[in-house]
């Protein structure tokens, strides 16, 4: 079996790194923690990795805006490193704060490193939301999520997750099939209703990819549901397979197939 090297990138305030590490490892990846300072001082390099994963947390306290300070750091010091990583067709995933960083670097939704096209604004509720929601997987450009998937339960834990952009941008996002996940109601329909849509995201967008389909960002936390007991109702619902698993499995499978 080919080794799939996963860079779990850390900064000050990263706090969902352990469970993300565990998720990749559980499905056969070889994760490694890398602090952003280790990339800056060149003691480690993205060259050696197949997947770059940006975990959830509060990078630099989410000061000014969530993920902003970390995004500026990445654009200022690691632009070349990231561009090279994209050229060699590495996969990138950003979860929660990681998604906020990807959007604020401009990598999502259009891959414009250094230019923001959308934002993740304060939840409509005005505060942090810790709850479970249902997500539908769209037929999207995302290159490693091309199958048919069931609606799944996912944890959300964020205060700034409202996907927001202007109407033209939103149209472009939709026509290019960049929306990967949407919040859905009891009937499996995309919803704007709180709390099933926990933040008021436009078009119920919970996650998005870029035009290459190799970058995925989402607010909900697939890494927090890769074991049955992580879900609050595991005692009463039959869980054939934990609902976050397929994302990690597919990423690893995809790398193995193409490496």
């Amino acid at each position, binding site marked *: 079996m080919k080794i799939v090297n996963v860079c779990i990138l*850390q900064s*000050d*305030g990263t*706090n*969902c790194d*352990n*469970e993300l590490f*565990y998720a990749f490892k*559980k499905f056969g990846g070889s994760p490694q923690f890398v*602090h952003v*300072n*280790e990339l800056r001082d060149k003691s480690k390099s993205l060259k050696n990795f197949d997947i770059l994963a940006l975990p*959830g*947390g*509060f990078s*630099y*306290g*989410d*000061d*000014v*805006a969530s993920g*902003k*300070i970390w995004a*500026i*750091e990445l654009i*200022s*010091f690691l632009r070349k490193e990231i561009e090279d990583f994209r050229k060699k067709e590495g996969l990138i995933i950003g979860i929660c704060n990681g998604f906020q960083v990807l959007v604020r670097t401009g990598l999502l939704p259009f891959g414009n490193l250094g230019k*923001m*096209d*959308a*934002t993740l*604004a*304060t939840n*409509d509720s*005005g*505060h*942090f*939301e*810790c*709850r*479970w929601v249902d997500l539908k997987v769209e037929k999207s450009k995302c290159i490693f999520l091309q199958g048919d998937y069931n609606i799944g339960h996912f*944890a959300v*834990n964020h205060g700034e997750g*409202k996907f*927001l*952009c*202007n109407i033209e941008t939103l149209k472009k996002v939709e026509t290019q099939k960049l929306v990967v996940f949407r919040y859905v109601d009891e009937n499996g329909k995309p919803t704007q209703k709180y709390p099933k849509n926990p933040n008021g995201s436009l078009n119920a967008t919970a996650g998005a990819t870029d035009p290459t389909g190799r970058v995925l960002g989402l607010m909900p*936390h697939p*890494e*927090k549901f890769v*074991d049955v*007991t*992580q879900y*609050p*109702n595991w*005692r*009463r619902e039959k869980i054939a397979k934990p609902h976050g698993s397929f994302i990690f499995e597919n990423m690893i499978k995809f790398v193995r197939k193409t490496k």
Partner: protein
Amino acid sequence: MIQKVRVITTVGPDLKGEGVLHDIRSRLGIKSVEKVSAIKVYRLEGLSEKETEILAEKLLSEPINQRYTINNQQQPITIEIAYKSGVMNPEVASIQKAAEDLGIKLLACDSSVEYAFYGNLTKKEAQELVKKLRLFNQLIEQIVFKEPKTLVLKGKVGKTRIVPIRNLSDQKLLDLSKDKFFLNLEEMKVIQKYFRKIKRDPTDLELETLAQTWSEHCAHKTFKAELLVDGKRKAPLLERIKREALKHNKNIVSAFVDNAGVMDFYGGWAINGKAETHNAPSAIEPYGGAMTGSGGVFRDVVATGQGAKAIISTDIFCLARPDMDKSLLPAGTLPPDYILKRVVSAVRDYGNRVGIPTNNGSFHFDDDFRAKPVVLVGAYGILPKSKAKKGKPKLGDVAVVIGGRTGRDGIHGATFSSGEMSERTMEVHATAVQIGNAIEEKRIFDAILEARDKDLIRAVQDLGAGGFSSAIGETGERIGVTVHLEKAPLKYQGLAPWEIFLSESQERMLVILPPKNLNEFLEICKKYNVEVVEIAKFDGSKSLKVFFKKEKVGDLEMRFLYGGLPQRVMKAKSAKGKVQRGKFEKLPVTESEWIRLLEKILNHGDINSKEPILRMYDHNVQGTNALHPFGGIGMDGPNDGAVVRPLLDKPYGLVVAHGLNPKLTRDDPYWGTIWSATEAISNYVAVGGDYKNASLINNYIWPFPDEEWLGKLDTCVDAVCDFMKALKIPVISGKDSLSATYRGSGGFVLHSPPTLVMSVFGKIPDVKKTVSSDFKKVGSIIVMVGKQEIEVDLKVLPKVLDKLHQAVVSGKVLACHDVSEGGLVTTIFEMCVGGNCGAEIKASGEGLFVETPGCFIVEVENEEIAKKLFSKVPFKILGKTRKDERLVVNGLFTADIKNLKEKWQKPMKEIFP
């Protein structure tokens, strides 16, 4: 020059502004204000306009939904709220970092919020509104009236003074103590005698160090005092607790010696726990107070042994009712609804950022908490058993301070001359309260864990109460230590050496290292952006020597510092109490009367649903939860405790729960204490905890211990010891806070209800063998297990706990919920909420509501199973679950669950929309 950038959100709701407008209209009933908008303000010093433009565009504003202005004031009436200078704004460091990343060097910066008011009002009226709505707390924040000329804090180095005490009369000694040191005459005379003996007067630093080391807070003089109860000698409280606890030591790794108690876990791991109050700061500034409370207890858990990982956080609050008549508020106290909102925000903003799940807690309301509320925070951690004990410093070892900088925070004396800071426009403010910086704390935790795993650390010590004085002194007690205070990184200049030594600035830790490990440790700190300096060396002198540059500012023999405090002898009057049975004057007769009573109970502050609060706490970070605070079909049924799986690749479980009953403890200190402890262990067993593998943490929040209150405390400790004895499990950590008394003018005295908070934590081998509270099936059997008694039968209790645990492990228990506040009817109601179903039971009228811990409602498939599982303990089959969402109590009433649920959820939904 200072450049002022203002950032306005243009797309999407301005939630802050709209919230203020809503409050002006609904709470103050003022209609003349048409609109309020909130604007973020940044002040940047040392930049050109062009550089300012770059920062405003790239860092401070969002291109999609915000716009900015530079040095431009357009709004008609604006009120700006900023932190007072000297109060550290956590955002500043991030702005500086990002500016530097963009190649722009800032001299200084600050951020604040501005409210713009539109409508028919004057600036003065707007100011009044801001004050009335408490949009700022004067202790730490202020309205900005004048543009500051500079943001750079300056000051001269303070000097060390000699305090002549050798010739003071008793009265003068007392006067000196009263102002500053809070020691009694006997203690002051011991100090005087010591300095007479060594033939010199103390420095201010030495006196401050002694006062801090010998303070009630650090020395626990009451708990260590010899007691005379009604004239009869009794052993000190702490000694009694320890003596009983250490008899039950099969799981103890360390108890009463470290920052947290440690017990055995599985596979070479240990788990630790600690709970601590932060009442006084939270009473005057609930947001900063609760934040720094959380920060402190997290550090206690991390600074256990050679370093632990914090994995659970708990919060317990006792407050006056949020809707209490405000005219009852004593002078200088804050309204309870304000305190409630602010402490919740603090837990959210601090715990969430540090990334420790807040998955257990509770609220208790009694108007006697209106002056001195209880803010109790707990934390639990995991660490390798081989590193669970602190190494003893060896000759030549060094102590480094890591993390935040030292400021004037937490120092008692607000006696500095402001003249020293005259170069500042806004005066440097000495404050007992700080705003926590969660990310600073997270960084130091990350660094400590990496250093621990690389075997670099001898010991870790938290810098909490007493700061360097306490942490360095205690670690060097055996061997002696030399400290160089000038090395401590400072937030601003102007601190005298004693202030640096005593400062309680947050987010700092002391790490003891063998000198050969220093360089590698420094590298780790660099990686995590953690500031670190070597501040002390263990020197074999058996004394505490403190220098500021070349000047010796303190030299105390360890023997005197830690052994010189005379033991107190304290008198107490034995307590008498009686459990008030809470009899109903008149039981309801008609169905609608019954339902109204039930609605009233479910609406009560101690009982109503706290889900809106829990949804703002990140209780899911780390991905370790195996039992969430709420579960069931709508995820709205509350569970009794937390179960986490700290090692994701192992099934091992850590179970945490707690119990308290301030009202009952006020009526009857003995049975109130037993009730609290029983409630804690019942919550723990109800979710699947094994009581035989549990440890206890006891926290005493008590009025000032005069003879009467000390007598009650003595009874409370007796009850704790009896409880340990009955269950054969130990208390392994705890703390006392004996200042829950408010003294106002005109002889007004208010005692907060005496409160014993018992926390429980322990281990189970497999989280799959646990249970939640939501009913799982229709037509299954509802059983009550245990005795329905307020005065808990300690002989029967262990048997009940054991049987129930075995039943849960067998997998035959479908749901389980402990009976507590609100009685068994509330318990069954909550189980129906989780299951989206109903229940039909037979029960006597009064028996529905009696609040009896040690008693459980259990759902099993059928009667045979119930009989098989519980035949050796008291149990009673109450009835069955049913499909329609109705609660049927035979012969009394049928209530609609959805309607009851609405009443139960309403109060907190209103406070936390």
